[in-house]
């Protein structure tokens, strides 16, 4: 990746910048079970930081420690330079949107949203104004007098979102904020979240299962697994330069070839596959030793598909089309290699299929190849 973006927006590259949320060596154990394991993380002001990971990997637990509902078993958390260890939840400059929404069932929508503002002792007029504004944003103005049990799942989620946003905290913790919304509302709310982040300079920490959401929303993503961070980086870094096979697999789809390093130079690496009698060429050096076990990973959209043998010899595979998935803008080809391995290729539909015919048909023999710079070399 080239560092072309403005350094101002990318505080994590600026060694002098002071992190807004500072997490060092934080571990949380429940009984003998370690939910969060020795985590280090710095989040900067105005970031929209996404925690991504499978179910039960410790995302909520980390968020709850930031909000103050769980005390870390060990480690330090500080927010805006203040050690949060002895600060109770009601004094933290943090608001959280709960995964279970946690709306007050005995209050109507309006009072739920106004609850935090009342605690701050704002004037009635101001509260009315801000609650009205917030409800308009989440399109719930007509529902302000309803009780939570009279709302749909998505409506509840929007109330929870409004309730956490209305206080304009320094840090907003959102636990799966948009999961129950339909596509249109989700995109609109995503946009609104980015808008709020821009306007108010709020720092967001967002938990999500949805990698696409993470890619669109965030300035940076942390991929979690079993209580630890596997990789922290910008969406591009995570997508194009995944650190491990798990990350590569978790974000987007990817084809993985196992092999051994046969040539290892400063400007190129050659890998021979273990089972496919294939040879892969990468035009960059890597810190690997000859003969070590590695994986060559290629994203489906980086692969070219053609009916005739491509000119360059390296990174070339031959196979038979087994399946075609037509998605409109692109088609997904599943190509079976001689070894039986299936390779996925995404082909943009630049022209309309003629007579209903695609670039290649079922059982057609096809050739796959990719640029020497497109593949990722993974060692674990």
């Amino acid at each position: 990746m080239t560092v072309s973006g403005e350094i101002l927006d990318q505080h994590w590259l600026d060694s002098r910048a002071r992190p807004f949320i500072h997490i060092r060596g934080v571990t949380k154990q429940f009984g003998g079970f370690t939910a969060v394991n020795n985590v280090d993380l710095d989040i900067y002001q105005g970031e929209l930081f996404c925690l991504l990971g499978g179910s039960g990997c410790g995302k909520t637990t980390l968020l709850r420690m930031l909000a103050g509902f769980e005390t870390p078993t060990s480690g330090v958390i500080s927010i805006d330079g203040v050690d949060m260890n002895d600060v109770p939840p009601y004094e933290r400059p943090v608001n959280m949107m709960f995964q279970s929404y946690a709306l007050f069932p005995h209050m109507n929508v309006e009072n739920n949203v106004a609850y935090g503002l009342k605690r701050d002792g704002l004037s009635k007029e101001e509260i009315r104004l801000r609650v009205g504004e917030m409800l308009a944003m989440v399109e719930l103005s007509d529902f302000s007098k309803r009780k939570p049990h009279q709302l749909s799942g998505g409506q509840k989620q929007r109330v929870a979102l409004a309730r956490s946003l209305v206080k304009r905290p320094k840090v907003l913790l959102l636990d799966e904020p948009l999961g129950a919304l339909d596509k249109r509302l989700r995109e609109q709310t995503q946009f609104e979240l980015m808008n709020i982040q821009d306007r108010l300079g709020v720092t967001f920490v967002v938990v999500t299962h949805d990698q696409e959401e993470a890619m669109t929303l965030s300035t940076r993503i942390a991929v979690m697994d079993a209580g630890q961070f596997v990789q922290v980086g910008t969406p591009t870094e995570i997508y194009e330069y995944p650190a491990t096979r798990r990350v590569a697999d978790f974000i987007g789809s990817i084809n993985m070839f196992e092999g051994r390093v046969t040539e290892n130079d400063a400007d190129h690496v050659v890998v021979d596959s273990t089972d496919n009698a294939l040879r892969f060429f990468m035009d960059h050096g890597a810190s690997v030793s000859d003969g070590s076990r590695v994986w060559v990973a290629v994203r489906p959209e980086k692969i070219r598909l053609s009916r005739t043998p491509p000119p360059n010899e390296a990174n070339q595979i031959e196979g038979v089309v087994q399946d075609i998935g037509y998605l409109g803008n692109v088609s997904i080809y599943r190509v079976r290699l001689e070894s039986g391995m299936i390779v996925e290729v995404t082909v943009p539909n630049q022209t309309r299929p003629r007579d209903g015919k695609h670039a290649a048909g079922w059982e057609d023999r096809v050739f796959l190849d990719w640029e020497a710079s497109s593949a990722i070399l993974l060692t674990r």
Partner: protein
Amino acid sequence: MIIMKPTAVKSTGIQRYQQMFAGVSRLLQQLQAQWKSVVVTVPYFWMLLFFLAPFFIILKISVAESLIASPPFSDLLEWTRDGALSIRLSFENYSYLWKDDLYINTYLGSVKIAGISTLLCLLLGYPIAYAIVRSPPTTKNILLMLVILPFWTSFLLRVYAWMGLLADQGLINDLLIWAGIIDSPIRLLYSHFAVYVGIIYTYVPFMILPLYANMEKLDMTLHEAAADLGARPAVTFLTVTLPMTWPGIVAGSLLVFIPATGEFIIPDLLGGGNVQMIGRVLYNEFHSNHDWPVASAVAVALLVLLVLPMMVYQKVQEKESGSGW
């Protein structure tokens, strides 16, 4: 295409089974519907037999006249000499209640004692119920057992035990003298204090159990949400915990207040002659004065006194939840 007459269609084995099955399940459904109505009727029948019927008998006696006979009251229906059926209603018993200060004061006294006891039961029971809910599962079961444990001993026996504890030569006075806090026994038994102790001791489980049942359902993340939005623990209690446990508070309070108002044994044994409650008056009318009609009127008046406010409360609640949003 060949169209066969419906009658010509011979049902295959599978179809026959399906028909049979449909028939059986229809039968079961009918049975179930009937069973449902049976299940619903049983409690009504029970109420009719053991609550409404006795109540009407009492109501009938309350409008009769006192006689020295057996039974000691006049009949509601009477054959006059010329063979006509006449109804004799006498509301004198009720006006008697109203005119005599004794009854009004005793009613008010009972309500006051029951009210204060209910409040104290609530103040005592609420934190106990909360602590039980918040304790780990094994401890929770033990604590619940402890709440129910007194019911395993006869109520009368437990009141006698309190007499022993509170007496002039009782354990409490002995302890206080031994500790040098007092020189001579203080009057504990046969006082309002003793009655309060007795009522609160007896009825606090009836406060704890409905509160516990209510709090058990309380979602603890709501407390976290309140704290997250800037509410200190006291504010969270007032704005979230209290309103959400309100149904439990009402249920527990009614369970304590209603029987406490009509309580007889506790004021009789622990209050002696010093604490007049309506239950004692009722007892005296029946057994000492043998005035069944007045006793019945006292009972009916008590019921009206207790039930009417409750009905009003219920109506208000219904209205609130009907138009609250």
